[in-house]
């Protein structure tokens, strides 16, 4: 080796060694993502009927915490001889449905059951809950995905929602006046758009990015982030490390996830009363419609497909989608449950599955007879050979009906009613659903029309 190169080699190696040493030093700093310690106990009567006793219960075990909570709420409390809970406020443990103690470890979001004796110190966990549950069911959601409790939040006057679904959820629980920032796709209720245009609500993000600085400028009391979006997760981490209150919610494509998110948003923003009222309306509507269409086991399932376009090779809704949940509830048999989520299928598949009804969610077309007929004429032969086409049961959801259908949010109940009407026209004959639905989709609702307001 050329001797003149030695100093250069030594300098190069030194730079690399120093850089590695510095990296090791900075990597040792841990990232704090765990919420505060638990400061209370939850009594969960099932169906999102929870009671939080916000008392500083340090060094109190779970059984003592339950006694204190029942006393404060004037609930009766009875224990069995083996130490298990027999009854709380008239709600008795029976064979399949029992009172059990559950916990969430710090930094986790997963409920785990605890067995007697119940001498667990409650401040060792992110959440502790006495829940009345069927075997195999988890208690109601109590923390966000990073284990931050949803019960210990202060008063919220200014909220930022980074997803259009969360915006709709907050408005559904009467929290619209708390919203000071949204993503650019939040467009429902209409009053949100008016406020965005007037500057009362700031737009703080788009499809691929979130503007951290714009959020901070709003000085929000809480920010709701969608865990399925990587840029939201990064923003959440930055907000938490900067001392802001933020919640990371799982915006999965199923009805349970939707109702969980509504519950969390309502609880955090102080709208829990309105949330309970909303859920009561949901239950009433579902019960009414279920009675009309009859129980699923006695009914013939109708083969149905949900697509995102009228293309020869469309994207279709698979098993883990909330429209699949809705089709199950309305006696529909989604023909693409062999597909996991939304997926693009081979053109032959549509013909092979031969659905009797196809619902297309696409805002490519206008909500007019002319556009609908143009869409039908443009369909490929694979589409035209399905029973759905032959029987004239291809439905087009366009304009704002597209958002209602694709956005996993509080309006799922309205999609549920329309889908029930499409699948069961004989028993729900009071309103006939058009083959194309757009901004007028509320005209095809009766039981759920007033559950979610349209806004001015």
């Amino acid at each position: 080796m050329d001797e003149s190169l030695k100093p250069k080699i030594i300098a190069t190696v030194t730079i690399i060694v120093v850089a590695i040493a510095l990296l090791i030093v900075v990597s040792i700093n841990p990232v704090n993502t765990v919420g505060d310690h638990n400061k209370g106990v939850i009594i969960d009567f099932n169906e999102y009927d929870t009671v939080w006793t916000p008392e500083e219960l340090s060094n109190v075990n779970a059984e003592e915490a339950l006694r204190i909570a029942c006393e404060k709420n004037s609930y009766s409390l009875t224990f069995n001889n083996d130490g298990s809970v027999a009854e709380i406020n008239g709600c008795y443990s029976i064979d399949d449905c029992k009172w059990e103690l559950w916990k969430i470890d710090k930094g986790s979001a997963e409920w785990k059951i605890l067995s007697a004796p119940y001498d667990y110190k409650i401040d060792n966990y992110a959440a502790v809950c006495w829940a009345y549950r069927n075997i195999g069911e988890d208690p109601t959601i109590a923390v966000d995905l990073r284990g931050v409790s949803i019960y210990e939040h202060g008063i919220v006057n200014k909220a930022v929602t980074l997803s259009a679904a969360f915006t709709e959820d907050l408005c559904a629980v009467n929290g619209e006046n708390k919203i000071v920032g949204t993503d650019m796709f939040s467009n429902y209720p209409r009053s949100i758009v008016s406020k965005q245009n007037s500057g009362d609500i700031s737009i703080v993000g788009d499809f691929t990015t979130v503007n951290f600085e714009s959020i901070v400028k709003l000085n929000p009391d809480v920010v709701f982030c969608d865990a399925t979006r990587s840029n939201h997760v990064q923003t959440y981490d930055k907000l938490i490390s900067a001392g802001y209150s933020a919640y990371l919610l799982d915006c999965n494509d199923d009805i349970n996830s939707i109702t969980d998110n509504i519950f969390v948003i309502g609880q955090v923003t102080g709208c829990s009363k309105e949330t309970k009222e909303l859920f009561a309306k949901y239950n009433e509507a579902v019960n009414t419609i279920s009675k009309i269409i009859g129980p699923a086991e006695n009914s013939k399932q109708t083969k149905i497909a949900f697509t995102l376009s009228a293309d020869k090779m469309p994207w279709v809704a698979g098993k883990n989608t909330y429209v699949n949940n809705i089709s199950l509830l309305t006696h529909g048999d989604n023909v693409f449950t062999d597909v996991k989520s939304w997926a693009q299928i081979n053109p032959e598949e549509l013909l092979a599955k031969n659905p009797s009804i196809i619902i297309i969610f696409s805002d490519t077309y206008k909500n007019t007879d002319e556009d609908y007929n143009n869409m039908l004429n443009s369909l490929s032969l694979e589409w035209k050979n399905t029973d759905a086409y032959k029987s004239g049961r291809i439905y087009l959801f366009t304009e704002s009906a597209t958002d209602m259908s694709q956005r996993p949010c509080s309006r799922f109940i309205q999609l549920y009613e329309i889908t029930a009407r499409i699948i069961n026209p004989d028993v729900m004959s009071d309103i006939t659903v058009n083959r194309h639905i757009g901004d007028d989709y509320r005209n095809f609702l009766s039981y759920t029309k007033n559950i979610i307001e349209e806004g001015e």
Partner: protein
Amino acid sequence: MASSEKKQITHNMRNRRRLRYVIGIGLIFVVAVFILNMCVGPTGTYGIGEMFNALISAIQKGGNDLTDIEVIVYSSRFPRTIAALAVGIGLSIAGSMYQAIIRNPLCDPYIMGVSSGAGTAAVAVIALNFTFFGLIPSNSVFLTAIVAMIGGVIAFFCTMFIAEKAGGSSTNYVLAGVIIGLAFSAVQTILISFAGSKVSNALSWLFGSFANVSWTQLAVIVIPAIALSLIPLIWAKEFNLILLGEDNARQMGLEVRNFNRVMLILASLLTAVCVAFVGIIGFVGLVVPHLCRMILGGDHRLVFPASIVVGATLMMCADFLARMIIPGIELPVGAITTIVGVPVFAYMLIRRGRSYDG
């Protein structure tokens, strides 16, 4: 003294003078753009004193209990501006190294397939929760970045393997890099088609942005990017020998093959580090070295330092525009870099293209 020696001395003095100008003006620009980025943002403009006070106060508080302005300056503007500066330097230096070693004017930091490898690995994490067979914890804040970095390095070693087996010439490296890049891009396309609702996450990463750089990430970007960018400065003279051709460089005592291999590995690591946290940002690594050569000639003792200041300035300008063009919305910084850089490069090409051969 012979007239050719006099000419050489005059030439060297002129180049040194040019370097002083470029570095001096460049540093002024770097500082000015840094201050601009720190003071001006979509939510408001702060005075220089106000901004520095807020930054120093936030640092003294250790990032806790900050006021709004302190959060904006300390947690938002500072990390992204420093990251833009470091990535601009890194990509420009990597581009200069590739162009020198491969002696092809179309070379950029991604010529070895690093961007395709990193992009494919990042999309695999995003779409399929790929954790390199459990080697990296799925809840790690660095998961995507680390996997992207590993993906980029793997792609480079695939390129190197093929190129070395084919003889190890510059042309072999370019061709091997192109096919490996295509192969990884094809896999990336397939993965995106399976991403379903996670497509937006994949696009977010591929578009490139400094918006989400945090203090924790900042050190992991800046330390290796700056360190690896310093190394070619030490070896600038050897890079000049390479320009004379392999035979001439060998006659002058340089082990050309080994030197090229080591520098290609360093340039690829540098590129992988740059893209891992902020996504794929093109153009800078291609154009900045050319711009510097057009102004200063081919001497790498001048090109490397000049690339540092020009690359840093261009990237910080791009990041500034990315967040300011539509207030509240972040535009893809890779696209902005190109939009800013094309007119500058076109102007230089028109003015100096006749006397410039890459």
